[in-house]
């Protein structure tokens, strides 16, 4: 029963943890982050926003319900490495098709388990996220000093561009369901399937474009709206996407953005983005919707945020009129949503598509439909 603790986790600040290896044997480098969701590990693993990150799950038992084809948010697991307290030895769920181990091996992800994940979480909370490496098999037998050097030599998340890695290479189209309402162009910076489903379910035809698509390309089919998706990396590296977005905004085409898309709207409007100490990653975050005064429990996965100072409504430094901070996180007052007063554009930092997480913020997709409808009306007038 007792298994050799011959996997090693090395942090850039020199902390070393040993544990039991799982998944692929080998090594992986990335930014170590913790996620506090108690359910939805499959959605987390397959969320492209986690590309380049070694994810620690604070929930102790992972893998219990196995993996299936319907819950994946993309075609593969994106996390660079996986840290789990206890990996399930069996799967038990009527929808399970494969084990967690099966998919980790398929996608070549190195994992480490049976270590004090809480101690590690508290450490990251106190000193902030950092680079790390997970090593197993022969890789783990190298001297620790060598492993630390490897970690230190890896690329830091700040300043890192990952959109091209996770984005679709070719445009593709997904048809609406039910009654047709309109058409939306999506810039895929690491989009999740649930986001697309939420749009098609509302009667939208969706055209998904690669991350480097220009505004002309995005607008080539005369969409009713443009959407920027979630995705990994430092928003300050996404200059071409920000430039394209400004063109969209200048044309007053309705715009909606989620997560990375929110950060890019912020930058397009002339605000700065910054890196949070340890980010928001979980499915229990209280967000205040300032429009309704209601609190929603939401899914978060972001290490960067938009900086807006000077009040609830401030002018866009880039000249797009007034901008309202529409949503804030009640835990730490981080800006969680932007709403342009003078042009049809809004975005949120968190995940209304949930997956994993509560559906409280799902109304934000309804707002997209409302925005398109209003825009049509104002055009007619």
């Amino acid at each position, binding site marked *: 029963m007792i298994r050799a603790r011959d996997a090693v986790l090395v942090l850039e600040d020199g902390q070393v943890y040993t544990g039991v290896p799982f998944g692929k044997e080998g090594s992986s480098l990335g930014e170590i982050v913790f996620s*506090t969701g108690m359910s939805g590990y499959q959605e987390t693993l397959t969320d492209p926003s986690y590309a380049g990150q070694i994810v620690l799950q604070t929930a102790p038992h992972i893998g219990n319900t196995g993996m299936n084809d319907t819950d994946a948010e993309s075609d593969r697991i994106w996390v660079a490495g996986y840290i789990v307290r206890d990996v399930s030895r069996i799967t038990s769920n009527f929808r399970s098709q494969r084990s967690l181990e099966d998919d980790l091996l398929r996608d070549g992800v190195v994992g480490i388990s049976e270590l004090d994940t809480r101690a590690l*979480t508290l450490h990251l909370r106190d000193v902030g996220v950092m680079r790390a490496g997970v090593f197993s098999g022969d890789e783990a037998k190298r001297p620790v000093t060598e492993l630390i050097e490897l970690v230190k030599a890896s690329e830091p998340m700040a300043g890192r561009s990952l959109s091209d890695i996770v984005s679709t290479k070719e445009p593709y189209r997904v048809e609406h369901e039910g009654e047709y309402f309109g058409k939306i162009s999506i810039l895929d910076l690491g989009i999740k399937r649930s986001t697309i489903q939420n749009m098609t379910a509302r009667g939208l035809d969706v055209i998904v474009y690669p991350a480097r698509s220009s505004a002309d390309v995005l607008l080539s089919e005369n969409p009713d709206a443009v959407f920027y998706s979630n995705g990994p990396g430092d928003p300050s590296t996404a200059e071409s996407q920000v430039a394209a977005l400004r063109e969209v905004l200048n044309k007053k085409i309705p715009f909606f953005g989620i997560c990375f898309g929110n950060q890019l709207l912020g930058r397009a409007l002339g605000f700065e983005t910054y890196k949070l100490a340890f980010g928001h990653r979980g*499915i*229990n975050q209280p967000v205040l919707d300032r429009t309704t005064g209601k609190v929603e429990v939401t899914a978060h996965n972001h290490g960067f945020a938009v900086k807006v100072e000077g009040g609830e409504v401030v002018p866009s430094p880039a000249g797009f009129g007034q901008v309202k901070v529409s949503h804030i996180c009640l835990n730490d007052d981080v800006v969680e949503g932007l709403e342009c007063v003078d042009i049809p554009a809004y975005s949120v930092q968190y995940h209304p598509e949930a997956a994993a997480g509560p559906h409280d913020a799902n109304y934000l997709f309804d707002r997209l439909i409302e925005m398109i409808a209003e825009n049509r009306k104002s055009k007619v007038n």
Partner: protein
Amino acid sequence: MPRREDIKSVLVIGSGPIVIGQACEFDYSGTQACRVLRAEGVRVILINSNPATIMTDPDFADATYIEPITPEIIESIIIKEKPDAILPTLGGQTALNAAMSLHELGILDKYNVELIGANVDAIRAGEDRQSFKQLVLDAGADVAKSVIAHTMDEVLSGAAQLGYPVVVRPSFTMGGLGSGFAYNEEDLRRIAGAGLQASPTTEVLLEESILGWKEYELELMRDKADNTVVVCSIENVDPVGVHTGDSITVAPALTLTDREYQRLRDIAIDIIRAVGVDTGGCNIQFAVEPDTGRIIVIEMNPRVSRSSALASKATGFPIAKIAAKLAIGYRLDEIPNDITKVTPASFEPTLDYIVVKVPRFAFEKFPAADATLTTTMKSVGEAMAIGRNFTQALQKSLRSLERRGSSFHWGEQTKSKDELVSISKVPTDGRIVTVQQAMRLGASIEEMFEATKIDPWFLEQIQYINQIAEELSSADKLTEDLMIFAKSHGFSDIQLAQLRGRTEEEVRHQRYEAGIRPVFKTVDTCAGEFPALTPYHYSTYEQQTEVRPSASRKVVIIGSGPNRIGQGVEFDYSCVHASFALHDAGFETIMINCNPETVSTDYDTSDRLYFEPLTLEDVLEVIHAESQSGELVGVVVQLGGQTALGLAQGLEQNGIPILGTTPDAIDLAEERGAFSKILDDAKLISPANGTAISLEESKVIANRIGYPVLVRPSFVLGGRGMEIVYDENSLEGYFDRIADQAIVGPKHPLLVDRFLDDAIEIDIDALFDGEQLYVGGVMEHIEEAGIHSGDSSCTLPPITLSDVQIDRVREATLKIAQGIGVRGLLNVQFALAHDVLYVLEANPRASRTVPFVSKALGITLAKAAALVMVGKSIAELVAEGHLPKQDGTHIPAGAAISVKEAVLPFKRFATKDGRFVDSLLGPEMRSTGEVMGIDVDFPTAFAKAQSAAGSALPTSGTIFISVADRDKHQVILPVRRLSQLGYKILATSGTAAILNRHGINATVVRKHSADDQAPAGPSIVELISAGEVDVVVNTPSGSDARKDGYEIRAATTAADAPIFTTIAQLSAAIGSFETVIAGPFGVRSLQEHAADRRALLA
């Protein structure tokens, strides 16, 4: 939306006596509510009939009414106190039902009092099955196919429609009372018949069977701005078919994908909105079909529930506290998270640990009862444990039960694998161990799933534990790695010892040598995302500990573990009070307990809380962790009942200082020979007695001292195994019955005492500091000696004892205190027979009556005892105002009389053939709770106590009398008076003949259908069952007491009629019949009673 300014005073309704299905979790929630409301500047008026609770402490409310929770009494309180609002959602089903009665009687409207926390429509919508079903369907969710029935005909046709088996659920009952599975028509007639009777609306619901489905619960909170959060998900390890209170449960849910979980969450939120719970909490139960995922909503409670208490302890999110704040107008986002302080309560806790709750049963108290677990709750308590994984939490929880055989073991197993698999098909107490044993013998996960429907994930975890055990026993050497590995899966030193053929001490020694110690993690609501400011800890075997060093002087208080009959909320009361007193005295208080229902396990109660099993190993580890900094002054063991006391010797042997009475002194009181010497030295006498370790020795003693004899094992609480034995045959029967319980042996001899017939039993609670004795109260039992003190009603002050007799009691108590060497609390029981005072037993610890004494006389014994244990003298405590100047020996004439009455759970326990177990009282305690009546005279106080206990005396009607021959001469006077008061008297032929001879008009009824001496017509059992008898007096005769009259008593229990099984009770009650006829009760708060006492003494 801050708090409502229009609410300046709130009446909080408590939950009354502890009964199965409604226990001290409502003391926890009610206490939190009272604290919150007072902190908000609201005037709090409280009604609760249960004196053992912490909430009824006069410090927690502005006006505390220990009165029966009836609409009439509440109306009187409303008239007197004029509250702006009533908060009924924190007192269980009792409070909710009381609120609904107030509404229906128009009392709320009449006095313009608002219900807060839940409105009438929401309560109705949630509790009325038909409207709830519609709500669920409207929310797009599914319900089990069902039929509502109000008559037996409707029941039978409904079942024909649904097909067997069907589930029967009566409306508006608590804890699933009266519900069950019917596999055929015979079952159905029995269960539904009882259910129709149990339901206040004569309504039962019949449902398609969802037996074996996965069962989940969600705990939600919603504010008036429609912000809703799910505090906790709970998964039942035992699938549908076993009441959730009787199931092993785990938090968070472990076998759902996010999609499935979010579906439950969406449905739950839709339902709480539709029901209209807009300022508080609710609990929703789901069933999920394992192979399709079909979701059925089982039920919802629009109030704080037992599961809310569990969820609060499991997550650190204090549901009752927040519910009270929401009720007075706050929104969730305006309330800070207690634990992080910086984040708001409008979030959902996330756990980085696993919580397991296991039920504790008391079937050994009801040998005739069917021990099969069903949808009617039967457990009397529960233990919770926290671990970093499921195996650890499960093993910790099982050892928290403090019950022989409750933990997984790998000793001899005489049954075969197939036998064990077959046994595990029926859910019973301890089934999880049967499962473990079967799997140990090779049963596969598939086989066990087939037998139990327990999710394969949990079964695999049990298999894993067995595999680790196998590795532990087969390894050449218990290496450090192996030991740490075993510990991280929850193995105790005792289990390791068993697997390695060593002693617990040897294993512990080896572990200490290797430096293998647990670390302590924190329950922080957020999986470490934010710093936690509340030291609420649990142990695990990992790298980093989170116990913060402190330079304080520390006192560790050991709680009383899971509730059981004989050890319940009363002991928690004492522990909590000690903690408050010691904190105020400048000590850092450290509480260790594993009972999630209690106030002691509220992280607000003590300076530090360790949620840990109360075994020597686990307690030693907490003490070790806390000894790393500051100064450990000592450990308090005398307040946590037998659980804490039982640890005293072990702790002392490990060099831990025990505060107060020493472990050796504690043993003096328990060890018969030593105690006899103390009595001899003090020239006190006890009934003739002896000790035996075998049947043969017992016979010799019994023959020497003469039958009847009282037999009881030493070192037990609650009269476990205690019986009155009338002859040698019965003595043999007794040994047969206890044979497999291992409660008598060389280390634990049997005490055999001459039984004193017709003696008055007296209880005294006192405090001794080595020099001075301070009496808390002298209590006179209403039943004669022979009925366990916990089941007996008693009165304070005594109502028939003279001052001289009381002085003798006090003097004897002082001598015993000196003889034992008590430092702290002492409880002594005496019997007074023919003016001779016999000492029955002495217990140098907090007794069950400590809270009763404090409520009746305002003497806070537990707090004072804690201070005596850390060196204060009684003189100092009096001087500092901790104790009133005059102790409780003599109570001035004119002071209020308090009566304590026991509440018994017979209605929860049916025999295999579906009848209720016998309601006769005896020397073995079987009550689950108690109530108190307080008023100016005994009859009124007694009548109030009866009413509070749920057997209110009728103002008119029919009384049935059937007494044993020895009681016949004593029954005449009381019955004559009852007849004069206008009650119609029924009697069996023998009793009737004697009554008639005395000119009392008594109608003869047949005892049973074959009774030839009586006229034709229905038998008494039939009359009682038909509800035509309002009071039953039945005293059993002689040695065959259990058979005699059993059917009468069982029928009375079923019909909920008051029953008197001793003449002493009946005689005491006569004045009370007069009182209830005379008119409604008055009400007076404890604070007013205290002022009265001060005036009398001034």
